[in-house]
């Protein structure tokens, strides 16, 4: 065995941190799919948009946490407007048309970012600069904080869906759109709100990811693809499954990066997706349907 144990453990921590950020992106995506059958191809671009709005806010205020909140709010409003203008007219049509529409949106957003913010990457400053010893390297506390924060946001979403009045509206709409509408739930507005929530979570991940990997106009496609993989492996529309799958996929990639280059490590998650689709098309982390 050529790989020291320490390296494997460090990669485990890395995988967990990346997995939590990815889980935050994917839980928005899976929520949107679960409730309105929309496959949001522009989800990664909302991450990117959040990152850029965050970078602009940091430049203006100098405070990372303010930027996190501003980015989430701005992108949430944008997401709501996007849903009302492009996705609401497609309600009830083939889910494939939503892929096409959001693919167009993705193109527009990506080129807009290139136009406004240029091709170079923005590195956001780490708000927590402390480090601790992890075997042979100084591991930044910020990464750990990111994972915890992402987990807290997902937890808050889960609590909201489980206990909040509006959360119950959302779950009712997921289960039966027509019945929910008959009970007086304003279904179109629930859709808009869910899209806004998903967009806010994507934007928050973009800001959190900023200090780790930098914000570029091309990061959207990468995030979209990885979030797709996670959502399908975890089971479409299944929140808990998505979180487990995000961690699972990120760990797989982190371990694969020990053996091959990180660019090639992506293939491992592609293969995981294809195997899942072939043998457990409903998702790895859901009970086998009857």
């Amino acid at each position, binding site marked *: 065995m050529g790989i020291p144990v320490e390296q494997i453990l460090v990669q485990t921590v890395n995988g967990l941190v990346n997995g939590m950020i990815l889980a935050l992106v994917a839980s928005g995506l899976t929520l949107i799919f679960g409730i309105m059958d929309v*496959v949001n191809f522009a989800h990664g671009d909302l991450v990117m948009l959040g990152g850029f709005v965050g970078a602009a806010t940091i430049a203006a205020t100098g405070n990372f946490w303010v930027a996190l909140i501003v980015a989430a709010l701005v992108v949430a409003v944008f997401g709501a407007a996007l849903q009302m203008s*492009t996705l609401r*007219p*497609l309600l009830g*049509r083939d*889910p*494939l*048309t939503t*892929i*096409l*529409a959001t*693919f*167009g*949106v*993705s*193109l*527009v957003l*990506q*080129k*807009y970012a*290139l*136009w406004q913010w240029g091709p170079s990457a923005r590195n956001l400053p780490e708000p927590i600069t402390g480090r601790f010893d992890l075997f042979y390297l100084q591991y930044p506390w910020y990464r750990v904080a990111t994972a915890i924060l992402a987990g807290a946001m997902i937890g808050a979403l889960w609590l909201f869906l489980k206990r909040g009045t509006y959360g119950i509206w959302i779950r009712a709409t997921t289960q039966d759109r027509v019945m929910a509408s008959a009970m007086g739930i304003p279904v179109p507005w629930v859709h808009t709100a869910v899209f806004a929530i998903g967009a806010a979570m994507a934007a928050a991940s973009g800001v959190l990811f900023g200090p780790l990997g930098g914000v570029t106009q091309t990061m959207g*496609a990468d995030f979209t*693809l990885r979030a*797709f*993989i996670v959502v*399908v492996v975890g089971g479409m529309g299944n929140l808990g499954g998505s979180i487990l799958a995000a961690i699972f996929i990120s760990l797989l990639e982190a371990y694969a990066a020990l053996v091959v*280059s990180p*660019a*090639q490590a*992506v*293939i491992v998650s*592609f*293969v995981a*997706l*294809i195997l899942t*689709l*072939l043998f457990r*098309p409903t998702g790895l982390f859901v009970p086998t349907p009857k």
Partner: protein
Amino acid sequence: MTRAPSHRGYWIGFGIVVGLLTIAPLVLPPFWRRFVTEILIWGLLAMSSDILIGYTGMVSFGHSAFFGLGMYGAAAALLTVKPPNLWLAIVYGLVGAGAVAVFVAYFSTRLREIYFGITTLVFSQIFYVIIFTWTDVTGGENGLTFSQPGLGLPGLGSVPFTPDRLHWFVLAVVTLSYLLLRRITQSPFGMVLQSIRENEPRTRAIGYAVERYKIVAVMLSGLFAGLAGVLYAIQNKFAAPDFVFFLVSGEVVIFNVMGGIGTLVGPIAGAAFFLLVREGLSRYFEYYLIPVGIIFVLMVIFLPQGFLGFLRRRLNQ
């Protein structure tokens, strides 16, 4: 209504379009000459994808893989065999694209709807990553450059490609492909594909092996996409990983939706429209994909049948 007049009208229209495209390089300035050739190549790619999107009801987001493998297959033939041979490039390209198509078809046809789309997308990304990182063989990010082969005809010797000859060669290949694809879609096989699109469970219930038909459809589509890749490689004398990236697949879907799916001609018109808009706008505005993307989204919402479908409905009224 009898069938004969509409058929005659169709062939007259077909003859006029092919005739116009034949004389196009003689009357157009060099830039537009090359542009029309390029439209034909992208049109062939879009048409190959229409077999799946329009006729079988499966949206492929992975056509860049077939296109790219066609390119790299042609590159392999042109770089390894001396002197470079056009027909060998086509054979290599088709073998490359065909091999990928067999692989993709076998796995992805087991899935339906968006899952099919996502699987094809992921497969094309796998090939992208392999091509991008396997620098020794594929040239990595820089791709491969090679010299253009001559237009060799068996028994007649070989002449070098001029832009005109290249245009006519591409036109001949695309026209033949179109006629072949048209014949295929009107054959009993094509009818089964369309019945899969309309109602898959019923097609299965009648007794057709739906999976086998889908596999053949994907392979067929992949072969024609590979052919387009070979043509593009010969025109531009390079193969680059950018063409395997999934954005190309997305553009192919855009061509189809803009032109009108399930019409074969529509996707070519869609490609022409897209490339023209891009050409027209990119002179004034570097980020032309913003208006193009907005037009596309509007079309998905308001004109889901595409230009051709819209026209056809209008004319039928």
